[in-house]
């Protein structure tokens, strides 16, 4: 093999592997990324049923209902919009009403969010950054209940802690 053809082989191999990598990335970028939306954004943008996204906000006070076989229903709110959520599985340890939550799943035809993953914070003073930003964008960043301030967006801990997945 001449020097030139060796070099060409090397370049061709590099080109081929890189092309495959770029192709895979672009293909997946269009298909498998998941957008984060707050309830108000969902209402405004009109997300079609069956599209996978992350829904984040506060768990509405008094909305948590447990059904048979470890199913739960609750509502996620950003105080401007509210969306009912249905989930089957164990909830994270620090899942509470009135506190931040991020769920992943899709809307069904009736407008209920069918979640297959629930992420809740794992520290008293933490709120998922996406939730905090969404609430700020709504101008709803305010003092929380019980005189406790709703935590600052840039909290001291980033641990989302336990994630619960079906």
């Amino acid at each position, binding site marked *: *093999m001449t*020097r030139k053809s*060796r*070099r060409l*082989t*090397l370049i061709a*191999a*590099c080109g081929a*592997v*890189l092309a*495959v*990598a770029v192709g*895979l*990335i672009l*293909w*997946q*970028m269009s*298909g*498998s*990324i*998941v*957008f*984060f939306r707050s309830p108000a954004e969902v209402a405004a943008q009109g997300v079609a049923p069956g599209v996978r996204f*992350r829904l984040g906000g506060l768990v509405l006070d008094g909305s948590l209902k*447990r059904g*048979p*076989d*470890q199913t739960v229903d609750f509502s996620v709110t950003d105080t401007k919009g509210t969306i009912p959520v249905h989930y*089957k*599985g*164990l*909830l994270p*340890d*620090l899942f509470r009403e009135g506190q931040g939550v991020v769920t*992943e799943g899709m809307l069904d035809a009736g407008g209920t969010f069918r979640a297959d993953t629930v*992420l809740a914070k*794992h*520290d*008293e003073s933490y709120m*998922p*950054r*996406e939730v905090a*930003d969404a609430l700020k964008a709504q101008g709803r960043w305010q003092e929380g209940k019980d005189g406790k301030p709703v935590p600052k967006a*840039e*909290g*001291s*801990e*980033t*641990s*989302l*802690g*336990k*994630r*619960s*997945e079906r």
Partner: protein
Amino acid sequence: MIVEVGHFALALALALSVIQMAMPIWAAYSGDEALRETTVPAALGVFACILFAFGALTYAHVMSDFSVKNVVENSHTLKPLIYKFSGVWGNHEGSMLLWVLILSLFGAMVAVAKNSVPPVLRTNTLAVQALITFVFVLFIITTSNPFDRVAPAPLEGNDLNPLLQDFGLAVHPPLLYLGYVGFSITFAFAAAALIDGRIDAVWARAVRPWTLTAWVFLTLGIAMGSYWAYYELGWGGWWFWDPVENASLMPWIAGTALLHSTVVMEKRDALKVWTVLLAVLTFSLSLMGTFIVRSGLLTSVHTFASDPTRGVFILAILVLFIGGSLTLFAWRAPMLRQGGLFAPISREGALVLNNLFLVAACATVLVGTLYPLLLEMLTAQKISVGPPFFNWTFVPLAIPLLLIVPFGQSLAWKRGDLAAAAQRLFAAFAIAFVVAIGTAALTWGGPVMAPVAIGLGAYLIIGSVLEVFSRARGYGNSRARDLSTIGRRAAGLPRSAWGTAIAHAGVGVLVIGIAAQSWAVEGLATLKPGGTLAVGPYVATLDKVGPQTGENYEETAAFLTLRTASGDMVGPVETGKRFYPSRKMSVTESGLKTIGVSQVYASLGEVMPDGSIGLRLYYKPLVLLIWLGAVVMALGGAVSLTDRRIRVGAPAKARAKPPLNAVPAE
């Protein structure tokens, strides 16, 4: 008092690191050889000072000195002793101190490695290492001082986050940092070579043991972290493609590529510029990982101890080292003498392919990890890139890589014979095929791709065994006829050959473990005492639910008995919810029952007032192979590390062991 001395020792380390950095530069200008050697005691001094500072902080933690802010925030008098030790690095400040401790430890080790590293390269490396130490110690002293006092001192501390009160915290961060920070040495070697403008096989031989050491620890650190997350996070996943995991995976992939390209450089004096670039990139990815973990920029399930206000400082460090080293590379690399080109079908050709696939795979992880950040900056859209992305970009690039691994091992240097290699590997193909078909037949109607992946794992393992076997048997006229000759020759093979084979077999074990998770089964139910839940071939019976008390928590525990479907006793499993009053936090403790290398995993949900509980059970076949595979890989690295070849200049013994008594594997 001892806390103040610790603080002072840290400041002293900062000053000494300036000396460690300046002396080789000064020596280069003045030509004074003796001056250059003063960098060695300086490096040892930096290590001693930081070790003392770390000891002082540990003392404050163990003694529960609540006049120290760091102890107040992370400790409690009732906290078990082991967590008082591990709690030292269970927070931002203390973990940074551990980081620089390991950094200076590697510096001290290079300083005393007089035999294996040429003098100028050694002192230049120490100077670069000193710059890294200086910047990070400065970072600790100015933004994250663990020795800050509080007055008046409270009577009780806030306790450590209960999720961190686990044996995992005691071993995972030190192992991970030994890996992360170990790559700082290869980085320093690369920068020293660029400054010196000279790079050759001697450089490659000097760097190799350090890369290997860092790689072994990073492998163990990632595996340990994965196992910890698996049993602690309570939902049975072992890898989530979470930004923090990716941050540790990327330097591992780049480090693996580096490990292989240094071999080519050492043996064939080729791929020099590429190897230097990889060394720079590997540590850059480690630094970026530190930044991602600490800044809280990316939402993660694992991050602890982060503080965004310090993000700017870390970002500046990142720009300094990554930007600086790449600039140095762009400036000096063209001056390095290029190595030769070589035939595509050869050991070095296969190693180039290995590097290509690894780097491409690393790039897909990098894109997936940083894309959300980039998109949010540009369009304010918030997205998350989840497992599907990585499964469909990383895995397709990993599979061809795994297919060429046994080939690469059995091809000769310079000019290989593909047909002969394929012939030698025929048994591996055949056995792998039978394994895949057999698995598919046994699990008919189940996942389609998993039996293929099991076959791939078997192919890797058999390929490694065959490699050792055929090398021991020899070729042509010297071909051995009887087993005892083969055994003796196998024992006489270089340790690096054994290490390679063991590490590659470890990859096979890992692949089988991952593939077997396709048959994992999950069960979810609300149970009353006496109720049962079946999962896979096992049935769990809830015996009772009752309270238990630990040193610093109260627990509601569910006691289960596990039986096989036919009623044979397997053993008890216990899972509980622990409430930590000091943090007002509750944490689920999952219960594990290990059966061979498979596990049954129990996780307790809500406990209802009527005494019924929510229970989740998983049956995870062969799950332990995932981590065992990683341990075998690390073992292969460690065996390779004992190879005589990489202990250059060490007094060469005629033969370490008389061949007849030798044991084949170690």
